[in-house]
Each structure stands twice: as C-alpha cells, then as structure tokens.
C-alpha cells in the first residue's frame, strides 16, 4: 500500500476505475461490439458469397466460351460440308443439264434432218407431178391437128373394135 502511495496511485480510485472499466467494457460488449461484429460477419459472408458467385460465373463463362467455340467449329465444319455438297450437286446438275442439252440438240438436229428429207421428197413428188402435167399439156398442144383423116379413121376403127369386145 505504501509502495502504491509512493507512486501516487490511490487504491480506491484504482478500484473505482477498474469497476468503471468493467462496467464500460460490459456495456460496449453488450450494445456495440456484438452488433458491429454481427454486421461485419454478415458483410464477410456476403463478400464470400459474391466471390463464390463470381468464381462460378467465371467457370460458367469459360464453359460457355468453350461450348461456343465447339459449336462454332462444328457449325464451320457443317457449313464447309454443306458448301462442298452444294458444289458437288451444282456440278452434277450442270453435268445433267449439259447432257440433256446435248441430247435435245441431237434430237432437234435429227428431227430437222428428217423434216428436210421429208420436205425434199414431197417437193420432188410435187415437181414430178407438175412436170408430168406440163408434159401432158405440151403433148396435147403439140398433137392437136397432127392426126389426119386417115389416122383418125384408123384410131376410130380400133376404138370400135375395143367397144365391140367390151360391150
């Protein structure tokens, strides 16, 4: 006690201060530290949740990017295949069209040749007929008056004989 008094410390005051401190400590703990710590805990949990979600989002994004890449690659492959197939089909169609056109052209040519032959034959026949008719007309014109009375009588006698035979 003597020593405490030497250093200027009043034991009663010290006791009162300790009591005060304990009271204040209790009050702070009861009304200030607990809610603040609760808030901090909530905040920490929220941040942890955010970080976790961000991580999950990042993983999802990576997966999505990977999937997108795969889909793009697949789509490019399919597009390439489609283009190749279309190109092959176009070549095939072109070949068929060329073949058809060739066949049609040959048919038209054959038809035209047949038509020309037919026309030529018909023209020849018509020409032959016309020539025959002309020859007949020429003979008729040139023979008119050629036969004298004697020849006429001979022809008539022959005709009478024929009529007797037929009637």
């Amino acid at each position, binding site marked *: 006690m003597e020593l405490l008094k030497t250093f200027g410390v009043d034991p009663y005051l010290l006791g009162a201060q300790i009591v005060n401190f304990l009271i204040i400590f209790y009050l702070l703990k009861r009304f200030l530290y607990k809610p603040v710590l609760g808030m901090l805990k909530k905040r920490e949990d929220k941040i942890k949740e955010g970080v976790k979600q961000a991580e999950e989002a990042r993983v999802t994004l990576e997966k999505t990017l990977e999937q997108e890449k795969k889909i793009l690659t697949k789509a490019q492959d399919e597009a390439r295949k489609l283009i190749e197939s279309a190109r092959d089909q176009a070549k095939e169609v072109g070949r068929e069209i060329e073949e058809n056109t060739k066949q049609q052209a040959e048919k038209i040519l054959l038809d035209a040749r047949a038509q020309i032959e037919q026309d030529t034959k018909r023209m020849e026949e018509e020409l032959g007929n016309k020539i025959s008719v002309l*020859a*007949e007309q020429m003979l008729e014109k040139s*023979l008119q008056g050629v036969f004298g009375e004697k020849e006429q*009588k001979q022809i*008539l006698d022959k*005709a009478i004989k*024929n009529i007797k035979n037929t009637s």
Partner: protein
Amino acid sequence: MTIKQIKNLAMASYSNNSLDVKKINRISKFLNRTQLKRYIQFLKNFEKSKTVIVTMSQLNVKSGLESELKKIFPGKKLQFFEDKSLLAGLKLTDNDIIYDFNLKNTLENLVSYINK
C-alpha cells in the same frame, strides 16, 4: 296419182320409139305441179337411156362410124359432139357407162401411172 302411173304415162308418151309432142301436151294438162316435175324427170331418164352421146376430136370422120355404132347400140339415138382436146379417138356415154378410147385419156392414164 302414183309414181308408177306417172312412169307409165311417160312410157306412153313415145310413138315409134320417139317422143310424141301431141301426147305430151295432152298428158301435161292433167298433171299438177309435183306430178309434172316427176313426169319430166321420167321423160329425161328415158331419153338418157335411149341416147348414146358420141364425143369426137373431129366430126368429119363420123360417116362410117355412125353405121357401126348403130349396130353396137341398136334402137338408140346417137348424138355427136366435137371436142378437139380429145386429140384422137372418141368418148362414148351410154346412160351411165362411159367408154373412153381417145388419146387424151391415154395420156392422162400414163401421167397418173408415172406419178404413182
């Protein structure tokens, strides 16, 4: 009056194998328009069946021919016509039978044979 009766009238209109004008005038007075038409038609047919039409290229050579034809077609009248386009020979029309013995017909037959 029946068609047969009109036909008999047409046959009765002939005397000595030729048409009798007096008989025709007498008959035609008793016929109406339709009967008269039929009567004329029968007369035409009789005339046609009794006539032979002879078409020749020249009529000046018919003298000997006429007697020959009368032998071939006894009791029929002969009518002569000239057609220079026949060239030579003749063409006989006996009712619906035609005898073509002329150069024109021969030439036509020849042309049709060549064209075949």
